[in-house]
């Protein structure tokens, strides 16, 4: 297996169930993903797509693994930029677990790890710009009920 280009981690003071619900509920996704939402039933083998607010398709793919409250793996390809689409399929893995929250200080939080194995450099660049903002937004939404980046 090739190694991921990126691994992003955030600690969120919430429950695994709430993180899973946020990652798989179209209305919640829209809140932390800049108006983009997902269309899928999030079952293994099901189709998956990200849609812009105006209905255009941003990305498409397939749910490869879905273990509620634990693990979601998506086969993922960009659709709206020809140079990104040409790079082909990537694979995104999202892992949810309970972990020590900043070990020096004690307490537990949900550790959300997202890694993305991309096929080419252009898609990798697009991913590296997006994920940290999306994750910071998700953390903010779940901890404070509001988002930071609009």
């Amino acid at each position, binding site marked *: *297996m090739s*190694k*991921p*280009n*990126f*691994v*992003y*981690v*955030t*600690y969120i003071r919430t429950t695994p169930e709430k993180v899973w619900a946020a990652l798989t509920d179209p209305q919640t996704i829209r809140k932390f993903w800049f108006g983009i939402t997902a269309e899928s039933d999030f079952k293994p083998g099901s189709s998956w797509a990200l849609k812009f607010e105006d209905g255009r398709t941003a990305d498409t793919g397939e749910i490869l693994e879905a273990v509620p409250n634990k693990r979601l793996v998506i086969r993922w390809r960009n659709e709206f930029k020809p140079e990104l689409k040409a790079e082909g399929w990537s694979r995104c893995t999202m892992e949810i677990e309970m972990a020590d*929250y*900043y*070990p*020096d*200080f004690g307490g537990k939080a949900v550790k959300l*790890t997202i*890694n993305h194995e991309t096929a080419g450099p252009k898609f990798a660049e697009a991913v590296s710009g997006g994920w*940290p*903002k999306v*994750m*910071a937004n998700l*953390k*903010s939404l779940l*901890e*404070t*009920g*509001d988002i*930071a*980046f*609009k």
Partner: protein
Amino acid sequence: MKDAKANVSPDSLDAVFRALADASRRELLDRLRADNGQTLNDLCARLDMTRQAVSKHLAILEEANLVATLRRGREKLHYLNPVPIHEIGERWIGKFERGRLQALSDMKKALEEGTGE
């Protein structure tokens, strides 16, 4: 909990700033930025630091969540994790300032590279 400040806890801020307050650790982050997903051996081979020192610095960076790790078989791969820096950005940079700060930063970069008009 509506206060934006509540989003970054004081303890996590301390850990991040403490980790960044060291030139060797910033050097390690730069190495990962240039080439993400390196093993301890990869990092040691390219740095003028003992293996013990690199290992200690990586542990501090990992505790501050500035480095994320992933196991691939017997190897442990290290990745630069910029998410806490984004979270800090949220705290002091309002959403309306973001665009102007980006423009200022682009201008500084262009002028310093001698490509600005």
